[in-house]
């Protein structure tokens, strides 16, 4: 059992220092796709945190109880389990929390194909995280994704009002913004030097 400081390190490190979006390039589709408005960004982030937590538990279960003797089936079983879990969660949400379901809308099914989800399951496996470590890793990854999304959305809301050269408008500009955000996040690496 890891101690408290180790667990906090896992949470913080994946949230800011090794941010999934800005330093691992995972989940770039929603990062550029739904970062137009802050409200949408927050909801997408929340949906992501939720699915990441479920995935972490599912991956831990698969790794601990089923895949010990068949590591070559890891990828296929991860993909199938993630896709079906998201579907089940979706059905449950529609029945139990219709308001929340409508809020999340199209984002929930789309999250299945988000590379951050599969990335989390694979990183967790490679680093041999236990149950609690996995949960905190997923929470940190989700919070980090949300942070990046909301920052991006706030910058884009401001940039909409400024006079950008026609050449750079659109995707090129978004890449530059992401680059500067990524550069800023590199500064967090100093947090853990001691």
């Amino acid at each position, binding site marked *: 059992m890891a101690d408290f400081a180790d667990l906090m390190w896992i949470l913080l490190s994946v949230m800011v220092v090794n941010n999934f979006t800005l330093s691992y390039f995972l989940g770039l589709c929603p990062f550029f796709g739904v970062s137009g408005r802050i409200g949408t960004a927050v909801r997408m982030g929340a949906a992501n945190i939720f699915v990441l937590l479920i995935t972490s538990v599912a991956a831990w279960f698969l790794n601990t109880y089923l895949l010990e003797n068949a590591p070559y089936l890891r990828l296929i079983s991860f993909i199938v389990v993630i896709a079906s879990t998201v579907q089940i969660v979706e059905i449950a949400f529609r029945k139990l929390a219709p308001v929340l379901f409508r809020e999340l809308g199209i984002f929930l099914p789309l999250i299945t194909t988000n590379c951050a989800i599969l990335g989390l399951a694979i990183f967790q496996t490679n680093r041999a995280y236990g149950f609690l470590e996995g949960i905190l890793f997923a929470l940190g990854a989700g919070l980090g994704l949300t942070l990046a999304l909301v920052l991006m959305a706030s910058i884009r809301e401001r940039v909409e009002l400024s006079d950008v050269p026609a*050449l750079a408008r659109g995707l090129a500009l978004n890449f530059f913004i992401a680059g500067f955000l990524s550069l800023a996040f590199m500064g967090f690496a100093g947090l853990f030097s001691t």
Partner: protein
Amino acid sequence: MPGHRASNADVIRGTCHATPALRPNASRRVGDVLGRGIWRENPVLVQALGLCPALAVTNTVANSIAMATATFFVLTSSSVLVSSLRRVIPEEVRISAYVMIIATFVTVVEMVMQATMPTVHKALGAYVFLIVVNCMILSRQEAFASRQPVPAALVDAAGTGIGFFIALLMMGSVRELLGSGSLLGVPLLGQGFEPWVIMALPPGGFFTIGFLLLGLNAWKQRKGRGESHAHRAVRRWPHAVVSQTRQEVA
């Protein structure tokens, strides 16, 4: 749940442009399909698909080549298999079936890489597995391979794969040259060059693709200006073309 399937499929279809039909024995069509994948609808630079590997593993040329080759293999094999199974796979579960097929080929690539090229395998790390969720591959299955015969699907997949290869090679060469002053590990810029380390780090990926897109936009704009020589004619000989221009306006 037909609703969910439809929404997933719509999104994937939405990311792809209209696909011209490919008839057998028509070399012009083959060239057309190849050219579309390689340049006109380049998966990375034009459609912005498969960004995750295009940014994550292009810090050196060698890594870019390894990733692009692996993706090329997965894409062409999946397209051929999906195309040959297109009458067998039921409509309702087709996306899941495509993902399973892609995941199988990725597992093959991963195991071959681990056995034959351990250093490359280590450098690419988890990103080899993440080829599964490269939306470029899934979109080619949904938009082309699932409704075209095997040879056509192979040509389409090869074109897209080469387009991906070119994009990754461009990213990798810029980032390795500026980030460590070398290409494929061979130092090129001499002793006086101070390596621009940031280009090999994550922010460099974002900046490089940003500049590539800027260059592409500028090139397209210049090409667009070249085509509108009719307007220049109006400026030079207004009387000669004024009637024609009026017709165009009307």
